[in-house]
């Protein structure tokens, strides 16, 4: 049950890995609850509420990546590069699409 040093020198133990999932789960739960509460109880003015929901989502995504998918700065360089490059592509594609379509929409009215 107790780990020996792995290829990178870090010591894994059941306790450590178990804690990762527990912390991740607890954080995700709290972040989700706050987001739903903001809407259910109409906390904050509308614009700030939307920003808060977005931030909570981003934080929760990072929590998922870190505690469930075990992606961190210690990950293999290839995996990190892939995640970062994907993020760039997502930003370009989603951002570009929204910019273009809203621009077109405003010129149609």
């Amino acid at each position, binding site marked *: 049950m107790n780990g020996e040093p792995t290829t990178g020198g870090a010591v894994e133990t059941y306790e450590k890995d178990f804690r990762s999932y527990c912390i991740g789960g607890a954080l995700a739960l709290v972040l989700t609850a706050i987001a739903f509460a903001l809407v259910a109880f109409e906390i904050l003015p509308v614009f700030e509420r939307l920003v808060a929901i977005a931030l909570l989502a981003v934080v929760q995504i990072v929590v998922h990546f870190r505690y469930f998918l075990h992606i961190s700065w210690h990950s293999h360089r*290839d995996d990190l590069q892939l995640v970062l*490059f*994907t993020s*760039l*592509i997502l930003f*370009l*594609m989603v951002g*570009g*699409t929204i*910019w*273009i*379509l809203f*621009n*077109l929409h405003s*010129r*149609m009215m």
Partner: protein
Amino acid sequence: MSAESSFSLLGNLGAQDISFVHAYENPVMSEFIAASAGGFMVVGAVIVIALLSYYRGWRSLWFDWLTSVDHKKVGIMYIVVAFVMLARAIIEAVLMRYHQSIAVNDPGILSPDHFGQLFSTHGSIMIFFVAMPFVSGMMNYIMPQQIGARDVSFPLLNAISLWLTAAGAALVMISLVVGQFSTGGWTAYPPYTSIEFSPGEGVDYWIWSISLTSIGSTLTGLNFATTIYKNRAPGMTLFRMPLFCWTTLCTSILMIFAMAPLTIATLMLALDRYAGFHFFTNDSGGNMMNYANLFWLFGHPEVYILILPAFGVFSEVISTFSGKVIYGYKSLVFATMSIAVLSFTVWLHHFFTMGQGANVNAVFGIATMLIGVPTGVKVYDWLLTMVRGRIRLSTAMLFSIMFLVTFVLGGLTGVILANPPVDFAVHNSLFLVAHFHNMVIPGVLFGMIAGYQFWFPKAFGFRLSERWGKASFWCWSIGFYLTFMPLYALGLMGAMRRTVEWFRPEYLGWLQVSFAGAMLLLSGFLLLAVQLIVSVRQREQRRVPAGDPWDGRSLEWSNSAPPPEYNFAVIPQVEARDAFSWMKEHKKAYLSPDNYEDITVPKNSMVAPVIGVAAIVFGFALVWHIWWLAIVSFTGIWGTVIARSFVTETERVIPASEVRADHEAWLARVREAPVTPREREDTSDNVGRAEVLA
């Protein structure tokens, strides 16, 4: 669309959909041409079947080829698909050029509907079923050998990708005989392609054939990227890889990310057509402009998927036939990476005229001009490789030099088009058509033909005829200029693309010259076929068993021609860039290894052809609304996948003794082989042991 609510075993399919029946019922020239095309295809298929039976090739076809998961065989099969589809698409082009050359104040020989199908199949086939398979096949064959690997990371997945593309191609071929193809162009913009304006089966053929091949391409990109990242030989760092592998890596990254927008666009179009959704409809909140956005999010990276492998080929060919190390390796790598990233930032330049504000257009116009810079860097690197080199004008090298001149010309017209206000004048004119053919033909096609000439001896063990190769080269080159330079002029004179009849007599001369050029292009293609036939006939005098006919620089030249199934008897240890040149210079080539080990290779599998055939049936069933068949074939595909996952014996072992025997026998032949000096490269003296220049 019939409104029958009764169940029909064959969906919407009826006897009148068979092209021969249709021509019989509507006897006009256009229909005869269509029926003949269908007839040619059927006759061609029958001839192939007859030849296979005559030469008793069925066993070999199934056991050595169709069920193979060897990347070399998969690569060759991809290229075979490409050449077959090229034959069809070139004939379609010649037909269109002929029709247009006479259709000035004249209806010509093709009906508008038929003409619409022709430009749609021509474009769809050339992009998806000629260029994509050609580059995929080339990368498949060469990249694993260049990195010192035995195969790609996921061999069965590789074969499945091939079969998905073949399935898409089969659907397009079937549309020649059963039903009609789309008339919406290779881009299939709604609302023209919506169910309201294109009620027949044509657009559905387009949707499902493209969807199948695009899934295959995504998986191929995944496979190649994993192979390059995880499967390189010891000592082969990323910066010691040949440039063809760098372009393969960047192409793979593009494939992974760019196919998804196409899948989405076609899926949404399918939902609109089949289920009455409102993604792209005129009413009820549809937004057809999103289609253009999604399609070109795919479409622009797609053209870089096509050109980057060609750039890789040119790097290899130019350095080998200049007898010099490639100039500016690092700048070429960074240029390739820049192109890969920038290719995701320019897609709007395909629809400057759709109605966005000037600021939006300006941003994308600037990005488009920027992307020309790294390509320019590459051109300079290639030119500087040739400077002070000892150049040999082989067929592959001739294609490369013609590429350098002609592609730059096309690139310049691209910079012109990158200007939104200029583009407003020439968008969708023949100027645009000339521009993109000016990129694809000298770029992708010449690159792939050069790669084919260059690596054919490695793959098949004998060289191609240089004489016929050069004849083909001249036809392709002069043919290209004759066909497309007039189109630039015509575009500036106001002629638009996809036009079935003209009404301006001043166009006539240009169109006639263009048709003459098209005949030359067709001749170029036919001469490639002649080259192949002649070379096969003369193969005994052309054999290069020692494996290195050109004094190659990278690892694929270090094994036999053709290579063994496992590529390398012992995985090489890499010490430097241009790994094989290094070995030859340091007298480390062709040494007997100290020990041999058993080699594990994947077993053949019928999973890939089964999935492929099921995919054809699935696509066909969806096109014709034969729902029971669609469900059955879909279940068949996934059932096969699940069943395969229960198979545990998926590999076989080649014993070390067998590897030793084969390898030592080959090494003995190599050591006996006379070294061929450069001047004798194109003679029967060349048995694959090239002289190494100091």
